[in-house]
């Protein structure tokens, strides 16, 4: 899913985190400030007790604190202005479930990918759809403004326009429409869809399986048909190569020693 902007709670969280950073950062080490658009479950969000948690937060802890020995603090910044803020030196890096793409790569440098999301197709259990070609002429549900909607749009072009797209406000509405026979398929991120397929939709819906974009790119492909592969990266200013290399080394190290898998399975069961 592409990021939307959450302006709420920016000030309060920022202030609280800044205060926490001051208290903890007395050791003379450099504090790495991390720009992020909070909340965005499950990548960065606050618990009801106000504790900042999430996949990005745990990866930051592992990379910056445990591997590289820096202090770090998260700075809240709405997603639509987060790249200009990085280049204005409001923080050192961005960790905000940010998909690496060409437009962004013109303005910032990305680390090696630390998370991969796939656009996948979910259909009803009894559906006979088993390939993208079977999607010809059917109606699909997506969430407005997401990369799932973009993937549906490009699938439509591949099918010579023979695909109808219903754009819903929120992804649960698209899933309801699937259960209620209003759409034949839902195109969305694999991690979010998996929660639905294995949760409330269990026994009623399934992923379309087969090889797709992920297999083409020779990735460690998931079993279901993937329309696109989206890699999340940590964003750096373009003059920060040395630090970026340092972080890439740390990312490789946590993948090596199993820390990454541990964090991954905590947030994305299954």
């Amino acid at each position: 899913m592409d990021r939307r902007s959450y302006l709420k709670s920016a000030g309060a969280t920022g202030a609280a985190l800044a205060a926490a950073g001051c208290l903890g950062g007395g050791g003379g080490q450099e504090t790495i400030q991390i720009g992020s658009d909070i909340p965005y479950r499950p990548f960065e969000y606050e618990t009801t007790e106000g504790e900042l948690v999430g996949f990005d937060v745990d990866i930051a802890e592992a990379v910056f604190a445990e591997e590289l020995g820096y202090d770090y603090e998260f700075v809240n910044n709405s997603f639509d202005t987060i790249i200009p803020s990085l280049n204005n030196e409001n923080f050192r890096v961005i960790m905000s479930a940010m998909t690496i793409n060409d437009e962004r790569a013109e303005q910032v440098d990305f680390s090696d990918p630390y998370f991969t999301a796939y656009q996948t197709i979910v259909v009803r259990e009894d559906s006979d759809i088993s390939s993208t070609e079977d999607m010809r002429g059917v109606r699909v549900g997506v969430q407005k403004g997401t990369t799932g909607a973009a993937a549906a749009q490009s699938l439509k072009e591949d099918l010579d326009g023979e695909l109808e797209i219903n754009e819903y406000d929120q992804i649960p509405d698209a899933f309801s429409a699937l259960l209620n026979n209003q759409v034949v398929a839902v195109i969305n991120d694999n991690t979010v869809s998996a929660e639905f397929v294995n949760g409330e939709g269990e026994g009623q819906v399934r992923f379309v399986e087969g090889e797709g974009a992920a297999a083409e790119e020779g990735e460690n492909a998931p079993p279901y048909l993937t329309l696109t592969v989206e890699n999340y990266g940590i964003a750096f200013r373009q003059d920060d190569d040395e630090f970026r290399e340092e972080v890439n080394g740390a990312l490789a190290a946590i993948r090596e020693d199993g820390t990454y898998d541990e964090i991954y399975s905590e947030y994305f069961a299954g």
Partner: protein
Amino acid sequence: MATDTGRTADRDRGVLEQLNDRAFRRLGVVGTSLFALGVVLFIGYILLVRVDYALLVEIVYPQFTFAFLRVIGIVAISSVLSVIAGVIVGLARVSRTRLTSSIAKSYIEFFRGTPLLFQLFVIYIGVPQLWSGSFPLEQFNYYAAVIGLTLNHAAYVGEALRGGIESIPDGQMEASRSLGMSYIQSMREVILPQAWRNSLAAIGNDQVILVKDTSLLTVLAIPELLSAFRQINSSTFDAWTPIVLVAIAYLMITVPLGKVIRTLEERADPATHGGDD
């Protein structure tokens, strides 16, 4: 405020009132002119600086044209159905049978007392779930839109008509009945034509709101005007070009609709229509 003027007013009320009226009028002219100037400058700035005309031409057809026609279609159907249903609700509401009128009252309470957005969700997401997966209607979002708008606005039309009927003195019904007319005859020949005229303004007002309520249909994945705006905004990050189109499109429906309603009101009013009773 100022005791001085108070005393002057006591002394020479006529002159002061005239002065005040003139000052008041002048204040009105200055105030509205300033407001209009601000609006013109703002719109001029938007149209000259903010609107990307290349993008405007690109999106006006097919995206906006189809969204516009879709809205007109939905409005036309829902509008006719809601007025018909509203007359039924209104008649039931003024019924002298306790059961009928209290059912109509509950209907109005529910549909006026809960948000249309909620009602749309009930119809579109709640109702098909009762079939648990085998709901037969395809593209139910369009049906849900028309059903939702009709049920909701029937309540408002019904309530408007009730007001119109109740503003007719009881004596008229009694007189008609005593002339040997049935209840239905009296309603149709005597009460309703007058009640219709009395409630036309309120009903027309409601129909204009119905047009604007179609913006809620964006949540039913109907590609109407607001959906078109959101889609273009999220893909181009240009807000003002689609905003201008959306504003023009809605006004192209509501302004003529307002005119039609005013014409109907004038035609229904015997004072302006030469009185052909």
